[in-house]
């Protein structure tokens, strides 16, 4: 892309709040239940029913807004967003329009080692819609309302992101902050964190925004980055050809790795918002808001700074580990039992993350106690097992749930560190391989590697490598002196 062009991206993020019940009724919010088993006359929009706000949803939304450095409103209210679509049985969504819960926030995030800040325009509360499935055979549309009425916050950024990488880094930081603040599980694969992106190009230095495209269906960090990269290329090409871009909604087609225009009705944006008469407004007590602010835990950026200062971790390590609260907790607990932070960090980033990634698991799904990792690392330090055996033991301990020490004993994986026993093996190897021994004595140092290999082979890889090497070198040196 030419340097003369600037990419401008803003995000609209929907986040499901971690409540037990829905925002305006007592139905469960559990994910994955059989269709329409968590519904009632209120979330199905039956006439004569009245919604009542779930206080926990309001509290979590305030928590999220404070974690995103927003100014929380003193006075806020709900509005109706009117449109006909079968995912909303009422014919409108209860949302917030001109008096949102919170505004004017910001979020700092790291991209390629640099700190960047994106402003948050607003955070508001609303209800989620149902799920539609299209039956290709009967031509019918089928609706599941279990998700309808699950509390959501919508987080809208200012158009402050300048590249697809920045958009991704922002989303990753946003997820980490919301997970730390315990407002949402943020499971993109379950739809509890969803993102639309607005993207346009403009000549560098210009202040007006170019014609934007709104990209929907971005249900992974990868999809977000790939779709935006595709859009930058598509819009750049169009502008270079002198074409005029049109304001449009496009969707990311994961299979073909392209964005495609979506059919949208022209009137779709004519929502005719008006104040929701069925719900009373909210006046937020500043003291209550302050209480929530004080109850916020250490957030990822603060924790990252502390990991660097307190444990001496490089910025890279600290960034990778604090990205997940569970992983950072795991790291700290492990360091408590085994006070060598850099070694623990290497294992967390290498073995632990490697294991999770290879199985497509989230850190929350890790079934392994930090004490166990400490136990394993101590066995390496004590010379009981080698690092490579430790890696194997880790894999087995994580998948079987057995303790590393028990596994080592059960399988007889202890290193051979008995000098007498190892010396005997060394003698045997020297006797059996006179030719490499001669080579070594004539100064071919490389022959030592072969002899070491033989020692390892005879001990089934269990020889303590440092000890074996020392014994081998000593034996070869002594015998050279004996040979005339």
């Amino acid at each position, binding site marked *: 892309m030419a340097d003369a062009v600037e990419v401008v991206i803003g995000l609209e993020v929907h986040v499901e709040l971690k409540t037990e019940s829905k925002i305006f009724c007592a139905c*469960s919010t559990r994910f994955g239940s059989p269709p329409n088993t968590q519904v009632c006359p209120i979330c199905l929009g*039956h006439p004569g029913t009245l919604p009542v*706000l779930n*206080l926990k949803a*309001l509290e979590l939304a305030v928590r999220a807004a404070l974690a995103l450095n927003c100014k929380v409103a003193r006075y806020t209210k709900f509005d109706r967003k009117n449109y006909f679509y079968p995912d909303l049985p009422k014919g409108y969504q209860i949302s917030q329009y001109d008096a949102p819960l919170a505004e004017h926030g910001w979020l700092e995030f790291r991209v390629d080692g640099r700190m960047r800040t994106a402003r948050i325009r607003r955070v508001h509360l609303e209800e989620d819609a149902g799920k539609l499935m299209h039956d290709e055979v009967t031509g019918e549309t089928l609706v599941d309302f279990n998700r309808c009425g699950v509390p959501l916050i919508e987080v809208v950024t200012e158009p402050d992101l300048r590249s697809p990488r920045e958009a991704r880094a922002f989303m990753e930081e946003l997820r980490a902050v919301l997970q730390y603040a315990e407002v949402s599980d943020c499971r993109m694969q379950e739809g509890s964190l969803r993102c639309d992106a607005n993207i346009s190009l403009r000549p560098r230095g210009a202040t007006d925004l170019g014609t934007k495209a709104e990209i929907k*269906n971005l249900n992974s960090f990868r999809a977000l980055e790939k779709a935006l990269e595709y859009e930058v290329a598509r819009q750049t090409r169009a502008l270079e050809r002198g074409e005029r871009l049109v304001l449009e909604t496009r969707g990311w*087609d994961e299979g073909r790795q392209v964005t495609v225009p979506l059919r949208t009705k022209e009137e779709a944006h004519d929502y005719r918002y008006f104040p929701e008469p069925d719900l009373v407004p909210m006046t937020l007590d500043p003291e209550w808001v302050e209480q929530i602010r004080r109850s916020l835990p250490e957030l990822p950026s603060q924790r990252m700074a502390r990991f660097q200062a307190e444990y001496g971790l490089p910025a890279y390590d600290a960034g990778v580990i604090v990205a997940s609260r569970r992983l950072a907790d795991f790291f700290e607990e492990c360091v408590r039992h085994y006070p060598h932070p850099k070694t623990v960090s290497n294992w967390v980033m290498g073995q632990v993350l490697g294991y999770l990634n290879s199985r497509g698991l989230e850190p929350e799904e890790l079934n392994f106690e930090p004490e166990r990792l400490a136990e394993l690392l101590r066995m390496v330090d004590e010379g009981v097992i080698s690092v490579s055996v430790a890696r194997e033991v880790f894999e087995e301990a994580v998948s079987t749930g057995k303790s590393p020490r028990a596994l080592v004993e059960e399988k007889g994986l202890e290193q051979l560190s008995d000098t007498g026993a190892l010396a005997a093996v060394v003698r045997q190897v020297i006797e059996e391989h006179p030719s490499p021994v001669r080579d070594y004595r004539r100064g071919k140092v490389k022959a030592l590697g072969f002899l070491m290999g033989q020692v390892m082979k005879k001990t089934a890889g269990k020889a303590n490598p440092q000890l074996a090497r020392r014994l081998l070198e000593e034996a070869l040196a002594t015998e050279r002196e004996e040979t005339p």
Partner: protein
Amino acid sequence: MAVSPEEVRHVAWLARLRLTAHEERLFSEQLSNILAHVAKLQELDVEGIEPTFHVLKTLSNVYRPDEVRSWPELREVVQAAPQQRDGLFAVPRVLPEGEDEVSAKNEKDG
């Protein structure tokens, strides 16, 4: 404060109402009269007065605790819909919009 027949037609479409040409003209006239009547409020001096967001001035902060309660007549409530299929509400096909179109396509391709 005139509401043109075109605006009436547009609003009627948004509300999924089918009006005859006669009704469009009739409502255009009536709506114009109503708006003109209400417009009298514009003459009031509201300088320095806080906007009213909600007519219930004294009532606010009505909440319920976050407690799950299943609806006891779940079957009846679902069966109240004119058409169902395997526990799902069946509705006339809608033009796929937004995520649904792409996900339907992905499922087919995948």
